[in-house]
């Protein structure tokens, strides 16, 4: 009898351990991969990425030539996109703050031209991927057009926009907004208006986003 009892108990414990391991594995994998999204699946309104009714707005004032901005864009911004933009909790808005040099300005103009063709985000990330530091003659007209071509933009429209600086108004408006909001360093994040200067740790930024989400919901 005792043997029968222990056989049942052991069976229960072993089954529980197996089931528990499966649950933990599934949750971990699901948590890790929940945000693997394609940028083209997300709605974008120019420099704003995400669903219009998302309760949190993450703004980032940034310069295409600043090395920390590149890191923030390629690490933090993509993490924000995966974690919160794709799930409809936040929108991500890029604000141009070109202060390092003329290359920063021309890169911002070119990105604005990509926005006119609804290709802002792929082009924006391309610019950061191609960054090699400050004032290295990386964002030349030739390169900016070459990357636009690689992303299959309508080159006639892009060239016209670039030559006429059609997007300059938006770039200048962002820069002025940055000055008014006392941006003195890039990147500077604003999460529903809460300012985070410099490149924050992901956990720090995540906490602020979630706090704002909890407040707004």
């Amino acid at each position, binding site marked *: 009898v005792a043997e029968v009892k222990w056989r049942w108990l052991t069976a229960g414990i072993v089954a529980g351990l197996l089931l528990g391991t499966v649950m933990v594995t599934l949750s971990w994998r699901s948590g890790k991969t929940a945000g693997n999204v394609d940028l083209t699946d997300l709605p974008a309104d120019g420099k704003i990425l995400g669903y219009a009714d998302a309760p949190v707005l993450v703004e980032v004032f940034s310069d295409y030539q600043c090395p920390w901005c590149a890191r923030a864009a390629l690490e933090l911004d993509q993490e924000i996109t995966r974690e919160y933009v794709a799930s409809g909790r936040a929108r991500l808005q890029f604000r141009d703050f070109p202060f390092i040099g003329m290359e920063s300005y021309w890169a911002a103009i070119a990105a604005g031209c990509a926005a006119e063709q609804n290709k802002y985000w792929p082009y924006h990330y391309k610019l950061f991927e191609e960054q090699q530091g400050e004032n290295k003659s990386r964002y030349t007209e030739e390169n900016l057009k070459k990357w636009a071509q690689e992303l299959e933009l309508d080159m006639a429209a892009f060239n016209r926009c670039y030559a006429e600086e059609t997007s300059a108004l938006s770039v200048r408006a962002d820069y002025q907004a940055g000055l008014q909001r006392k941006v003195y360093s890039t990147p500077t994040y604003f999460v529903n208006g809460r300012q985070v200067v410099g490149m924050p740790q992901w956990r720090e930024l995540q906490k602020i986003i979630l*706090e704002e989400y909890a407040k707004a919901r």
Partner: protein
Amino acid sequence: MSTDAAKSLGGRPAWPAMSYLVLVGIGCIDAAYLAWGHLSGARLVCLTGSGCDIVAASRYAYLFGVPVAYFGLLLYLAMGLAAWWLSRQPTLATPLAAAVAAGLLGLNVASALFSAYLTWVAATVIDATCNWCLFSAVIMWALLPILFVWIASQHYDTTDTEVSQ
């Protein structure tokens, strides 16, 4: 219920069954509150500021797109149902009763393991504390030894029952 439980256990101590059912009931209320928070979108009353909402909004709070709180509530309900049914069985001599007891133990072990993992995720990955989730994890772990004592003290054959009765 106490008389029934004492009778059903064939003279064995009734406290494990009763404590188990009471704790599962409390766990059910806790899980129901978390599930209601997801369903209504209301902010949770939280001892740790916004920690509960932060954990609830995290992607680890979902499994296949379904809030983990719903699974938690279902688990508590299933465990409560199985425990209530077991508390009314004179012995675990029938294969069905023995299997339900083993299944309940399995479910409890799995839930305890999963709640420990979620507590770890909240503390290290999400970096927030949710007192309701923590409370549920404590209940899950407290249930485990009680259940073990309960079913290990049960009879697993009819002869044994007759002797004790």
